[in-house]
């Protein structure tokens, strides 16, 4: 096949498309001839790490994906889980790291837009967004610009589209200095019997293009996302797409309106690799072929080549396989919403993906060559040589003043209140937000059922760095614990696996171990993975990020369960701990913030205990016995207490007098700041104590009475186990005023942002 106007395919051109020599030879073999220029571009994106998962696929297959409620597992645009009453929750998380580092506003905005399309393409109205954000040193001017831009971009897109941003995480570590992480998650709701998929079936059915016009933006975005960063990455700004949330909003309404008709056979978002990947993947799932005429694709600018049209990543576009004869129905709906709609091709039974530019054939590729035949690598893995050395924790002396130490940890920007961030997100639109951002998990009500859904995202990257297996397993445990804190039972997760360059054996080892750990944790709690995304090559000039396998978990809150927050509601309540008093300093946040050391073995989950704590917490919330529940995570008991005291910005702070029953061998420092799994801080009215005790006994969950809430300060002392009535002198005494000032001001101060909060 020859095309007169296209550049010749040379070895240099092949290399510049990011294809290895062996990969090119395989392409020639599959085609039985050298590819055209257009075909080379298509192979380069479809075989890119971003689209093909070539380094990760063999390990992803090991994740548990089955469950009685799973309606759609990995492999579609998003996963779906049955929530009863004829409804399903549809969700997925995806990274937009590389574009956000180059152009934070548009990078983050289009990340939000892309993940929303993955959800409404399944027929689900998006009801909530979450974001997991990782930034570098907050003091650097560039990082401030990135934080401002990413937050503004997420808000700018989600607010306009009218989907509330209800939760997520923001943390800082210098490993993200050259490569920030922006992981966006969308959750939608649809009828369980009306889930739309991207399976191109029925030869003769028309292929229709809807949404925005195609421009030159984002060409080779998927290839960029499959490379390390270098000093030249700045010059790749034109590969970042530009978002138009207004058009996305119209696209949501038009798609959902069309889905009420029987007109759609298949539908898919044009995301990474645009028209190419959406059409190839739909044909691949359907075992069919597609003929497309790029000349009929609506364009934003003149003179675009077929190569550019195929690889454009212009946003807010969808590809629909319509039922033959229903073209007018599709056209009418999209015209009503002032969107482009054009028939651009047809489903065939040839098994080939054929691209025409009018009469000229520009590409003719067997569909499996782009999907099943894409390379799969079992890359070498090697445990880092210095691993043993990272496990030893140096002797850490007690600080002069535990109260000052607490203020330092609470004011650290990774711990302090993120209200500066989420105040810029509309977290209430759709009037479904029952528990909004700032707590352990968000809770959203669902139309058509008395049940609610709970949402959280979690990962402690330092723990994964120090022990990928236990770190990733721990992320699963923590996410489930966060859900338990709002009374929810886990339904499933979506994962977003952010790692460095997989061609380095120690990175591949991290990846393999983290996936193993995540699988193990999910099995322990019987939670399936239903969707996810892998982002590799997150490094700049040889320095990788901390491995960050983010877990986005969705849970179900049964009807009649009243939500509790993480903050104490007033003085005179019992403060108690579900789980054991204790914890370890190794790999702790205290060690990192107060001592500047990132060493130790992260805590290992005791799964039987973990399940017992979750069960007891959920049961006590369902019975209406608890006033607050808060997971112990970074900073241990002292930080959890501080957050429960002053966590609410819109209510008076509440104090606590705590007499912690600690075993004698536990150091004060460990008691206060030690970290571990399986612990939840709760508060309850005195009259509820007996009932909570009974629930804990039944669940096999330890219940420790810690003290009572008070009016004025946070005080922590040890209770001596030898004598239940004796306590030691107060270890820590901090006024609520200074605690609140650090917790609510720490983030803004660390980033040097102007002005406080109204």
């Amino acid at each position, binding site marked *: 096949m020859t095309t007169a106007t296209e550049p010749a395919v040379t070895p240099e051109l092949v290399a510049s498309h990011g294809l290895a020599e062996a990969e090119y030879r395989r392409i020639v073999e599959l085609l039985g001839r050298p590819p055209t220029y257009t075909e080379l571009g298509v192979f380069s994106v479809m075989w890119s790490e971003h689209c093909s998962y070539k380094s990760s696929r063999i390990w992803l297959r090991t994740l548990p994906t089955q469950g009685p409620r799973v309606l759609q597992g990995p492999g579609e645009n998003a996963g779906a889980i049955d929530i009863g009453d004829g409804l399903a929750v549809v969700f997925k998380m995806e990274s937009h790291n590389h574009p956000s580092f180059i152009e934070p506003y548009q990078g983050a905005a289009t990340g939000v837009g892309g993940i929303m399309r993955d959800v409404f393409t399944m027929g689900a109205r998006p009801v909530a967004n979450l974001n997991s954000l990782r930034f570098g040193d907050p003091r650097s001017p560039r990082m401030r610009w990135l934080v401002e831009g990413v937050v503004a971009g997420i808000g*700018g897109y989600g*607010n306009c589209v*009218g989907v509330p941003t209800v939760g997520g995480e923001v943390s800082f570590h210098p490993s993200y200095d050259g490569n920030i992480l922006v992981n966006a998650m969308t959750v939608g709701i649809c009828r369980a019997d009306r889930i739309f998929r991207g399976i191109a079936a029925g030869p003769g059915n028309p292929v229709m293009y809807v949404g925005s016009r195609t421009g030159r933006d984002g060409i080779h975005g998927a290839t960029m996302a499959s490379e390390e960063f270098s000093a030249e990455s700045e010059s790749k700004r034109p590969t970042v797409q530009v978002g138009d*949330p*207004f058009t996305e*909003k119209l696209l949501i309404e038009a798609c959902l309106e069309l889905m009420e008709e029987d007109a759609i056979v298949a539908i898919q978002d044009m995301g990474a690799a645009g028209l190419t990947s959406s059409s190839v993947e739909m044909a691949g799932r359907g075992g069919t072929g597609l003929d497309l005429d790029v000349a009929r694709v609506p364009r934003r600018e003149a003179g675009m080549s077929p190569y550019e049209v195929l690889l454009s990543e212009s946003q807010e576009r969808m590809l629909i396989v319509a039922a033959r004869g229903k073209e007018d129905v599709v056209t009418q709906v999209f015209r009503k919403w002032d969107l482009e709609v054009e028939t651009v091709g047809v489903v065939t039974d040839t098994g080939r993906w054929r691209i025409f530019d009018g009469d000229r054939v520009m590409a003719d590729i067997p569909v499996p060559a782009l999907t099943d035949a894409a390379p799969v690598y079992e890359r070498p893995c090697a445990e880092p040589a210095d691993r043993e050395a990272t496990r030893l924790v140096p002797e850490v002396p007690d600080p002069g003043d535990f109260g000052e130490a607490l203020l330092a940890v609470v004011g650290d920007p990774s711990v302090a209140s993120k209200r500066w961030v989420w*105040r*810029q997100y509309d977290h*209430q639109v759709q009037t479904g937000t*029952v528990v909004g951002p700032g707590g352990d998990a968000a809770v959203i009500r669902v139309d058509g059922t008395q049940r609610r859904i709970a949402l959280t995202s979690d990962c402690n990257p330092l723990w994964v760095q120090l022990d990928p297996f236990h770190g990733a397993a721990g992320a699963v445990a923590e996410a489930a614990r966060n859900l338990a804190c709002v009374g929810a039972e886990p339904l499933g997760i979506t994962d977003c696996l952010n790692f460095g360059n997989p061609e380095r054996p120690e990175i591949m080892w991290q990846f393999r171990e983290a996936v193993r750990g995540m699988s193990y944790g999910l099995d322990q709690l019987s939670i399936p993975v239903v969707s996810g995304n892998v982002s590799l090559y997150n490094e700049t000039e040889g320095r990788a990020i901390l491995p960050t396998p983010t877990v986005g978990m969705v849970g179900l809150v049964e009807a009649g369960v009243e939500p509790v927050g993480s903050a104490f509601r007033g003085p005179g309540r019992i403060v108690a701990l579900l789980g054991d008093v204790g914890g370890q300093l190794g790999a702790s946040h205290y060690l990192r913030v107060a001592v500047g050391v990132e060493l130790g073995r992260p805590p290992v989950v005791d799964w039987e205990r973990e399940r017992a704590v979750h069960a007891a917490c959920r049961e006590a919330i369902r019975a209406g016995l608890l006033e607050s529940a808060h997971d112990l995570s970074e900073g241990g008991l002292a930080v959890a207490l501080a957050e429960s005291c002053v966590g609410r910005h819109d209510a008076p702070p509440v104090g606590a007098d705590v007499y912690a029953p600690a075993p004698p061998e536990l150091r004060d420092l460990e008691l206060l700041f030690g970290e571990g799994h399986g612990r939840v801080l709760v508060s309850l009215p005195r009259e509820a104590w007996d009932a909570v005790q009974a629930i804990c006994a039944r669940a096999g969950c330890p219940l420790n009475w810690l003290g009572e809430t008070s009016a004025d300060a946070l005080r922590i002392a040890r209770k001596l186990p030898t004598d239940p009535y004796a306590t030691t002198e107060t270890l820590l005494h901090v006024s609520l005023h200074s605690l609140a000032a650090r917790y609510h001001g720490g983030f803004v101060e660390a980033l040097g942002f102007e002005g406080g909060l109204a």
Partner: protein
Amino acid sequence: MRVGIVVFPGSNCDRDCARAVAEVSGRPAAWIWHKDRDLGGADLVIVPGGFSYGDYLRCGAIARFSPVMEEVVAFARRGGPVIGICNGFQILTEAGLLPGALMRNVGLKFICQDVHLSVGDTGSPLLGGYRPGQVVRMPVAHADGRFHADAETLSRIEGEGRVAFRYCDAEGRVGGPSNPNGSLAAIAGIVSPGGNVLGMMPHPERAAEAILGGTDGRALFVAALSRAA
């Protein structure tokens, strides 16, 4: 009693308003499509929040040219009750139904948070569910909510008792840090000379059920629905 909710391309609080209406009245509201040229017999028109036409130009500046706005203006001029919330308030000022303009927040950022409001003594039936001076709490969510008007307009609005809401603290003290967006005279909402058109930046529909954290917005819908018929 028919409630019509105008849907522009980019409206995103339309469904929330319909839900609040249904909560209060037990009856569904009707959609009024922006390309329509009649109001479908509505006795009360709500112009909801959102980002009409993306708000890529000045907020509300395009929406006012929608075919349906001619009818909304005529309806209002006949004394028909119209409530504009957030983007709806911006659209009503652009359409000339209410004076002043809504400008970029003083902090330049989008803000989503609860605010306290002091209810003005307007005599408007739409505010009949509140006592003058009453302090209510409901959320704001906007980037362009800073009310502005020239001195003459301001003194006219204030002189005629047309300030519906001012930002205040929990004790009702107006101004200072409780003014979240830098609005002139802490104005959060105003009414037309006849009191039948109300524009406000805060979202009463987000404070119409206890499960959402507050019910102070409910009285607005109750009054509007009962007086408008």
